[in-house]
């Protein structure tokens, strides 16, 4: 009887202690689901939560996965902060039931704000939150800022897209500049001549879904040649945690979700332009861009920086990076993010 009483008492103590705000003194390794407007979206939280500084990562794509970013410069940030890898609506391991027309940047920005609400509920209202968006995540993060920036201490855009309407034409110009530069440096001359030819044809044909997709692929392909010719950082020294890819997520589910959501959001490439609203973003902001980004070119980054309304804004250029400075120059990336967060806590 005594044994049963002690077991029940222990269970009650555990039950009630679990109702309190979570202990942030140890390294975090939590998975929370956010159920919001027809979707269940997981957020994976790893790292040091001692100082209650949480950095939410918005992945690229659309259709990428939160945990794809648990590598290189982003993973290194876990030593200092709690990093939140969020599977957006329709992406990664997110589930739900809604129509195609319901997937919009506006609703996805609401999802991020729902995540903020959950984090504050679970870990305390005094959390210091920062938001980092890469590529498509940069566009989504911009939309979050335009919806409710008051929840955050700072906004970090990394090779993001605030103005996709002009992306096609900007890319045509930038591809030519980079190709000319590489040819003059005697780097992979055959490849860059081919690129120039393709760009000429795509420029003549103008923007279509198919051409935009071809240009996007060409951007990633070009990084292989730029890396081979030592123009981009080598990415050596990055530890790859194979469990991210083969254990933490169901491969087939995430692959199919990626294709579906990418297709659902294909309209953004010709419709979205937040340039004129950027001046309403007034919280501390940092814009980081790879000089050789041929997916979303450098001038788009300069444009975002110039239009931001923040009085405390920082521009960081990565001279040896393509679309992903957190991989190409991961040490510099980590240091710059830490510098920005520490200056704006």
């Amino acid at each position, binding site marked *: 009887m005594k044994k049963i009483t002690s077991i029940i008492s222990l269970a009650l103590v555990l039950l009630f202690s679990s109702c309190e705000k979570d202990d942030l003194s140890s390294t975090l390794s939590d*998975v929370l689901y*956010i159920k919001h407007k027809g979707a269940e979206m997981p957020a994976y939280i790893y790292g040091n939560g001692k100082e209650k500084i949480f950095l939410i990562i918005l992945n690229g794509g659309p259709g990428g996965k939160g945990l794809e970013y648990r590598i290189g410069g982003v993973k290194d940030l876990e030593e200092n902060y709690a990093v939140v890898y969020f599977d957006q609506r329709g992406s990664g391991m997110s589930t739900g039931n809604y129509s195609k027309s319901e997937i919009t940047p506006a609703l996805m920005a609401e999802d991020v704000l729902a995540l903020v609400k959950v984090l504050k509920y679970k870990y305390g209202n005094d959390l210091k939150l920062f938001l980092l968006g890469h590529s498509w995540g940069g566009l989504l993060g911009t939309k979050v800022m335009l919806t409710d920036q008051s929840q955050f201490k700072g906004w970090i855009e990394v090779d993001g897209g605030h103005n996709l309407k002009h992306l096609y034409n900007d890319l045509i110009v930038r591809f030519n500049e980079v190709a000319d530069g590489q040819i003059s440096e005697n780097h992979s001359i055959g490849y860059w001549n081919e690129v120039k030819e393709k760009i000429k044809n795509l420029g003549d044909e103008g923007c279509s879904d198919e051409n935009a997709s071809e240009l996007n692929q060409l951007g990633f392909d070009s990084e292989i040649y730029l890396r081979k010719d030592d123009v981009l950082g080598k990415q050596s020294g990055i530890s790859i945690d194979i469990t991210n890819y083969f254990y933490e997520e169901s491969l087939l*589910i995430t692959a199919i*979700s990626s294709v579906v959501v990418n297709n659902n959001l294909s309209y953004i490439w010709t419709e979205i332009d937040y340039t004129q609203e950027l001046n309403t973003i007034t919280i501390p902001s940092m814009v980081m861009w790879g000089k050789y980004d041929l997916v979303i070119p450098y001038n788009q980054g300069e444009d975002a920086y110039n239009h931001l309304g923040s009085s405390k804004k920082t521009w960081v250029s990565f001279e040896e990076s393509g679309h992903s400075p957190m991989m190409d120059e991961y040490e510099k990336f980590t240091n710059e993010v830490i510098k920005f967060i520490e200056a704006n806590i």
Partner: protein
Amino acid sequence: MFAKQILKFIYMKKFLVLIMLFGFTNIFAQTDSLKSKGFQWKNLDFNASYYGETGWYPGIKVGAEYIIFEKQKEKVKTKRKKGEVKKIKKNQFIITGNLGYYWQAHNYSSAFINSAVLYRHTGNKGFQYNFGISPLGINTFFFNETYKISDDDELTKAFLSARAFYEPSLIMGLGHTMKKKRLKAWFLNMHIIGLIPYNSAVNALLALEFGFRFDINRFNK
């Protein structure tokens, strides 16, 4: 409060419950028609298996199967050393009912129930292969720690947060008969599973299954 939440959960999934009932009705309907010819216990087998989503998310599956049609071919060949050798090949159509549960590492655990129709060929030396289709199935994901934000922005910690999917599947596999006292055969199956609806469209899973079939009659002996 607890009962109310369970009722709400069941109510929300009622169409899937209907599909489930329809599945069972189908199985029992088949059984009835067999009864009229004389239900035969020897046609009923059970199976238990390791069931891994994507191969490595571990789970278990148990099922029952009933042979609804069987055709046996016998050939007698005369060999110089062995004399007359009888070769037997079997083709069977089988209906199955299955229950399973698996754990996806960080996200959810999943319970499923389905019914399938299988074609199985057994060669003379006991090697088997099968193909099948499961038009009736339900898979329910039970999510880990979940917080719900309602339309009016209210936050609550969700109790038993789950989502159910209609889950048709294709099955293909191989196996071999066994001469053990109770085990009838081992088998290795691959399942290609649809999840409908999933987000704004559909999705799919791959599962691998390794297990044993046993004959309940052999336990009685």
